[in-house]
């Protein structure tokens, strides 16, 4: 996917002013934030499960190569073919080659953020394959030619009204307004595609080493159709999604739906193991699994490795005050919110997403809700350090901080400067004690005044008090 993260600030400004978007984003609060809070109450040992989930992910990552090889062995034994793609381009090339090999004219897809990373649809269309997204949200976005704005609820930025208008225009049917009617209409449109598709493309929430299975969680049932109806099934995912055992997956599944959609469990949890066997009623004849690196192995052993624990639940963005107010499109690539502010610079280049690691107050709401305990603010801070080391920070910030840091190490000079500073600010505040326009204040003064200081520093006053105390004491003596 084309990256536009360099325009974060300008985009965010527009999104803040977009009344419709603001109304749509409020759904996150009521559905997902509250949903998660309610659902974790069902678990009496929630924190233990969370610790276990993080440990399971760490264990998988600690011997990633071992589990991946085991996965390949077991998947191959069941008749699947495992492909390794070092880059997203390579992944696209493999899928296009498979499409050519099996004479595929139409592919149906269930939701896959990794395929968004690859911009797979564009590659397939360029190769002459018709691609139909079958996840309701992704289907809407495909009709509207828009990118997802959330990793779990890709179309969260759109209102029901907008979807009604879009369906009316594209389907050329009388306008529907009720959600069940809209869903039915989409179903009816999608059914013939499922039946006529030659290839089904899915993602995978997890891949399981001991069985060689891929696993997806969905709510709409489209995932099952995609993975069973067409002749060819291609599952595409990142190498970090491997977990050692089915037992491990059950632990992770206790957290993923609760954190993602506020559900105890999703409507479907589908495990796909191997190709259609003798006597099986359905299933693909050919099953290809494409495992993508695209920057992931670079993180193994680095100070960012914890990010690979991510199970893509979306809780960090649902709870992020910045995401809640600007939405996902402002972030400018596949992954938005706190996890995206880390993944985008890592996968798409630090210099291509300078704002993102800084676009957070480090309030740590994301860190406390992450089901696999990723210290997201710490990782953002590490990226800031990398920006600083590589001289990628704007000079006024570097200069300002350097000056502050330099002065703060010299108490006498610092005292003198601060005494002058607070007097100046107090004077600027005037009678109302408010500074309306702060010079060098950057974005502060656009929407806020600065309460003016009292005019003397604490340390000055403290010395005066001490002196007075001493005089009083001497007089008493």
């Amino acid at each position, binding site marked *: 996917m084309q990256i536009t993260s360099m325009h974060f600030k300008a985009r965010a400004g527009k999104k803040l002013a977009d009344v419709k978007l603001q109304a749509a984003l409020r759904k996150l609060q009521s559905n997902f934030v509250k949903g998660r809070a309610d659902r974790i109450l069902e678990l009496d040992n929630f924190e233990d499960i969370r610790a276990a989930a993080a440990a399971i992910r760490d264990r998988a990552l600690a011997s990633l190569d071992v589990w991946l090889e085991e996965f390949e062995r077991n998947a191959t034994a069941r008749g699947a073919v495992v492909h390794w793609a070092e880059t997203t381009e390579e992944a696209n090339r493999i899928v296009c080659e498979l499409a050519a090999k099996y004479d595929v004219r139409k592919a149906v897809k269930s939701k896959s953020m990794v395929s968004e990373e690859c911009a797979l649809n564009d590659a397939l269309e360029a190769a002459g394959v018709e691609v139909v997204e079958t996840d309701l949200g992704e289907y809407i976005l495909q009709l509207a030619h828009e990118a997802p704005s959330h990793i779990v609820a890709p179309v969260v930025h759109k209102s029901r009204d907008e979807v009604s208008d879009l369906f009316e225009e594209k389907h050329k049917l009388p306008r529907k307004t009720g959600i069940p009617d809209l869903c039915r209409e989409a179903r009816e449109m999608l059914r013939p595609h499922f039946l006529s598709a030659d290839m089904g493309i899915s993602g995978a929430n997890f891949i399981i080493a001991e069985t060689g299975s891929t696993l997806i969680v969905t709510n709409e049932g489209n995932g099952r159709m995609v993975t069973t109806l067409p002749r060819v099934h291609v599952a595409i995912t990142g190498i970090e999604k491997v977990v050692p055992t089915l037992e491990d997956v059950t632990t992770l599944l206790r957290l993923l739906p609760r954190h993602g959609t506020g559900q105890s469990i999703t409507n479907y949890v589908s495990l796909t193991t191997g190709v259609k066997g003798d006597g099986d009623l359905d299933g693909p004849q050919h099953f290809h699994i494409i495992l993508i690196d695209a920057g992931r192995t670079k993180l193994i052993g680095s100070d960012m490795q914890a990010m690979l624990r991510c199970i893509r639940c979306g809780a960090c963005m649902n709870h992020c005050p910045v995401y809640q107010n600007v939405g996902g499109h402002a972030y400018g690539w596949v992954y938005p919110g706190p996890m995206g502010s880390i993944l985008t610079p890592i996968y798409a280049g630090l210099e291509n997403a300078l704002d993102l690691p800084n676009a957070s107050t480090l309030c740590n709401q994301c860190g406390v809700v992450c089901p696999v305990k990723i210290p997201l603010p710490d990782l953002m801070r590490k990226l800031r350090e990398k*920006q600083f080391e590589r001289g990628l920070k704007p000079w006024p910030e570097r200069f300002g901080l350097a000056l502050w840091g330099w002065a703060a190490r010299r108490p006498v000079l610092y005292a003198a400067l601060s005494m002058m500073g607070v007097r100046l600010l107090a004077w600027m505040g005037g009678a109302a004690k408010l500074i309306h326009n702060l010079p060098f204040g950057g974005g502060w003064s656009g*929407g806020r005044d600065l309460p003016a200081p009292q005019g003397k520093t604490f340390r000055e006053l403290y010395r005066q008090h001490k002196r007075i105390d001493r005089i009083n004491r001497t007089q008493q003596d």
Partner: protein
Amino acid sequence: MRVGLFVTCLVDLMRPGIGFAAIKLLEAAGCEVFVPQSQTCCGQPAYNSGDRASAQALARKLLGEFEACDHVVAPSGSCAGMIRTHYPDLFADQPAELERVQRLCARTYELCDFLVNVAQLKSIKEKSIKTITYHDSCCGLRELGVKSQPRALLAMVQGLSVTEMPEAEVCCGFGGTFAVKFGEISTRLADNKCGAIAATGAEAVVLGDLGCMLNIEGRLRRRGDMKTQVLHIAEVLAGTE
């Protein structure tokens, strides 16, 4: 009990009264308060901006200034949080200093946390202000677990009623340099917070961090609200508001 007061750079500059309120409370709780005169900043702005070297230099300076105290107390969750949860990271590769830092961390507290859990302050005199709401500052809340302590202290004040605002735990949008770099987003978050405060109808919003204080007060005034007071919890408890 000898307590070193880390005033914090923002209190020193912007609202020295809070420092004196903190001294009053600590003395009322029976502590001997020591205020190192060379103290400046904990290094948080540098740390959060990626300038590790400057942050480390300031951390080293603070360590030297406060090491001799039984406890270090700061009227700010984010500065106490910086010391307690982030200083060890700054010295992770320097074992000798790390040990000293860890000893300091274990003795460092946010003011309310200290008053409730260490000094065990028991009573507070009646105050002029009657209705307040409390904003939970992020670092205090999520790094140090400061949530019940300020409420316990406020509950000791006779005749004071606390009305909880919706989403008291949501960030006010300050975030240090974030407030300057992403002014529009920061303002929106501050505005949401002001709306939540207004919904309670309280005379004052009380909190424990200077950054949030400047941000919330700055936004309230710009919105035209000249009435709602923005007070540090130390000011309310010490009666110096």
